[in-house]
């Protein structure tokens, strides 16, 4: 049984421009001990997907199972038990830390909510976790503004780890950090994964980070998954034109410059194109793509693509 299993999940919002299909029919599985990378550009729905999995946002349709238990319709009270096991790390740690609480107070809150330990025990748990994430012990009496960006993300990680979760949804955890700090945080996440036997759903727009960090990668465009494969396969044999364009667009010192691989902008998720959602920007689009939505189908074991012409790519 997978740790997390999501079936045909949809999260739609009502907006002034009509129905916004942020997440529009997604299947997703995270196995125990696995890191699944979810890549896409802003507006593709990847953060909404993460929040829906945590039930911070209510899904419109579909099913979310955690360790076999259907959590799609659990009420807030019953969700509490599940929330202990699924935690989240956010992009901007400063925005997710109360500026008027000390780190000790911030870290104690979840323990109090979940009624874990007495005062002395809680203090010990906090001291342990603070040391594990590489912060000095005196951090507990300091306030968030006294820390640098990288240290704040360590606090965010400490908070996520406190309740001994099994799955952590990381939403762009290193995007706001300087390059020299990114490596520190990525290494810490790997260490914690090993130490606590964690699984990650790792949401990022940064392909090179996902390349390093994920076991399996899903590429998202306009609320749907367009390609899914294990890490090595995706980078060596990408079959969706969007995946390829994303890879080509990353400027890499090891490669000469190329012309921009894609023109145009991401279409609005409240006005999704007919047929294949990517046809408005796809260099290979034909009439078939404009009319018919491609099926998300397996082209090899563990490798799925939603493209009519995936056989012609490469």
């Amino acid at each position, binding site marked *: 049984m997978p740790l997390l299993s999501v079936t045909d999940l949809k999260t739609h919002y009502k907006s002034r421009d009509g129905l916004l299909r942020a997440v529009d029919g997604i299947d997703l599985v995270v196995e125990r001990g696995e890191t699944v990378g979810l890549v896409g550009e802003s507006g593709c729905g990847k953060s909404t997907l993460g929040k829906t999995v945590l039930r911070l946002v209510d899904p419109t349709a579909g099913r979310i199972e955690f360790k076999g238990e259907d959590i799609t319709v659990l009420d807030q009270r019953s969700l509490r038990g599940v929330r202990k096991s699924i935690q989240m790390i956010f992009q901007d740690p400063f925005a997710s830390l109360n500026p008027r609480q000390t780190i000790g107070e911030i870290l104690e809150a979840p323990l109090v909510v979940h009624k874990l330990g007495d005062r002395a025990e809680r203090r010990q748990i906090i001291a342990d976790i603070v040391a594990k994430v590489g912060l000095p012990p005196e951090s507990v009496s300091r306030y968030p503004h006294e820390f640098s*960006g*990288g240290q704040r993300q360590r606090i965010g990680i400490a908070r996520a780890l406190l309740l001994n979760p099994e799955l952590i949804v990381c939403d762009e955890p290193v995007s706001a950090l300087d*390059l*020299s700090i990114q490596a520190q945080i990525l290494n810490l996440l790997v260490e914690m994964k090993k130490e606590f036997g964690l699984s990650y759903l790792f949401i990022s727009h940064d392909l090179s980070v996902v390349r390093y960090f994920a076991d399996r990668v899903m590429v998202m465009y306009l609320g749907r998954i367009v390609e899914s494969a294990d890490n090595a396969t995706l980078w060596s044999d990408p079959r969706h034109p969007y995946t390829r364009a*994303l890879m080509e667009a990353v*400027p890499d*010192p090891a490669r000469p410059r190329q012309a921009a691989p894609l023109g145009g902008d991401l279409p609005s998720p409240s006005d999704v194109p007919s047929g294949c959602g990517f046809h408005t920007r796809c260099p290979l689009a034909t009439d078939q793509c404009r009319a018919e939505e491609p099926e998300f189908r397996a082209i090899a074991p563990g490798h799925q693509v939603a493209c009519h012409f995936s056989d012609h790519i490469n």
Partner: protein
Amino acid sequence: MAALLQVDNLTIRFPRAEPVRNLSFEINQGETLAIVGESGSGKSLTALALMQLLPRAAQIPNGRIAFGEQDLTKLNARGMRQLRGRDIAMIFQEPMTSLNPVMTIGRQIAEVLKVHEKLSSKAARERAIELLKLVRIPAPEKRVDDYPHQLSGGMRQRVMIAIAVACKPKLLIADEPTTALDVTIQAQVLDLLDTLRRELQMAVVLITHDLGVVAQWADKVVVMYAGRKVEQALPDDLFNDPLHPYTRGLLAASPRLKHDFHYRDGALTEIPGSIVSAVGETGCPFRPRCNQARASCGHHVPQLIVPAADRLVACPFTTSSKAVPHAAALSH
């Protein structure tokens, strides 16, 4: 050929700090100079100094910013106003905060043309449409009456670029122009900037933290750390053979798309600590984080030395991993 812009020993001082110290670089007509650094390196303040848009509390106690015949640090407000937007223009990271939300983009472009080129409203509007076409905005005749919120992030940055190049400036300062944009849009915007640079023979100062962008778009690179230039090189040299321990650390720390390296293979190389450790450092600002630091590194700030042609590095202990047969001298 004399440099278009020559910055000599620029120091920016605030009452309690000197975020930029003794910075020198030059840029020629039509050239792209990248200034790379992380937050706190002083790269954005340097950009603001070039525009003479530093916060009021900041002073320039020493240094010169020579633009043609003029020293911008000595120019009065009126003189600077005439240059700004006409000869030197700037684009910023977040176009939404630099555009006026209650003014159509057409009027914002026209404003520059009315001020600097004294065009009539009608002529300025026509030029605005031409400029929108130049920056590849589809249906410019319609878009000219749009407000910023009606445009996507990439389109807004194109509008900023249209405003910046309206008077065909000699120098364009681009401060993290694509940091807020998606990677496929970033590629489009950088393509556009480079095309305009060639067509208009503009020099571009490209300020960025993204090493990939630097590698592919710059003619020359300045690496800054804690307010100082620590290395300068041609992009190929910098990436093939970084000399300063900080540059080496940055390149080693960054996960790369084309490198087959996975977390199961091992940890990423870290630069320990943070840039905060440079505060109050009397020796080399990178010393507290440097894996090659020696006792003497704490004695004084290392001078820039010329390890090879077209290169500068502020570390006396660095040796190239590649043999350099002739260490030709640089002008400075």
